[in-house]
């Protein structure tokens, strides 16, 4: 399982805008590079990222070869109720990684 760092505020006031930050460990090999022997290094990237809150998708991103290694994604949402964020990264060669974080809304 690849290392992931997720930062969600543990508590928030109802209706507050909160920032969610995620950092995923991945080489993001573009597929455009060659070895010293001239062979193409095969593409190996994360292709999509999905964030769900209590089962409902709230944010999605497609990723491409020009994105740097260890992609860092930050986005905003409104704290409506307490619950659980689920994060999913999907990539080449069957790459799947998951993380979760909980928030208490008062």
């Amino acid at each position: 399982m690849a290392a992931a760092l997720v930062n969600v505020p543990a508590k928030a006031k109802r209706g507050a805008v909160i920032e969610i930050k995620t950092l995923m460990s991945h080489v993001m090999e573009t597929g455009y590079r060659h070895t010293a022997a001239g062979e193409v290094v095969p593409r190996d990237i994360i292709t999509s990222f999905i964030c769900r809150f209590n089962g409902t998708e709230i944010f999605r991103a497609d990723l491409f070869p020009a994105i740097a290694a260890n992609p860092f994604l930050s986005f905003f949402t409104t704290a409506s109720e307490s619950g659980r964020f689920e994060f999913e990264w999907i990539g080449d060669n069957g790459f799947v990684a998951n993380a979760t974080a909980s928030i208490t809304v008062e």
Partner: protein
Amino acid sequence: MMRRALFVLALLGAALPAAAGEIAPSERRSGYDFMSSDTKAMQDDDTANPGMLSVLDGDTLWNTKAGAANKSCSDCHGDVSVSMKGATARYPAFNATSATPIDLGQRVNLCRTQHQEAAPLAPESSELLALTALIAKQSRGMPIIAGDDARLATSIARGRELFFQREGQLNIACSNCHDDNADRHLAGSAITQGQPTGYPIYRLEWQGMGSLQRRIRGCMTGVRAQAFDFDAADMIALELYLMSRAHGMKMDAPAVRP
């Protein structure tokens, strides 16, 4: 004659005022100071600093049993945040068995071979970088004290000699950039003073982690010299000199650098 003069100067080192071109202690700046506000923000936020991914991996390795002895780092050293506090600020340190200085990566590998009875980790392998990143993080904010041991004097002097030694097709020494022109730019990038406060670092250009040895090899290749082998005696001496040159500066590992 010149070499001898430098050697004597180095031995007297701390007692003498800085020679022309050298950076006065009060003028020293970490590479962090030269970075853009965006890169600083990336380093300062532990959820944005990609070096922390390596620290996470290191934490797993710290608690994983390895080798014929079936021991983990934590079996001997316990909680890394207690036992390794300040350790990195002392390295490279004198190793009594070999009577030479060894850097942190070599120390980790000594533990692996002697106590875990496992194969040493390859230089710049993700495992070795992860363990050293985890250990280095425990010295965050602490002043560098490497080189205080009197037994290291000859190695520091050798490192200093190498720092001022012109080399490569470009025929320039470390000091020509990092002392004489540290506040200027080379191809748009800040040259910096070469203060090793944050290793192992996550370097954006590398898209990954690397040790001080990798950074030094990059410089040597840049001046078109034959880079030292990993863990060569001269490499360790140069690392040691750089750390002693940064004596008292605060550690900020795992640092992010452009």
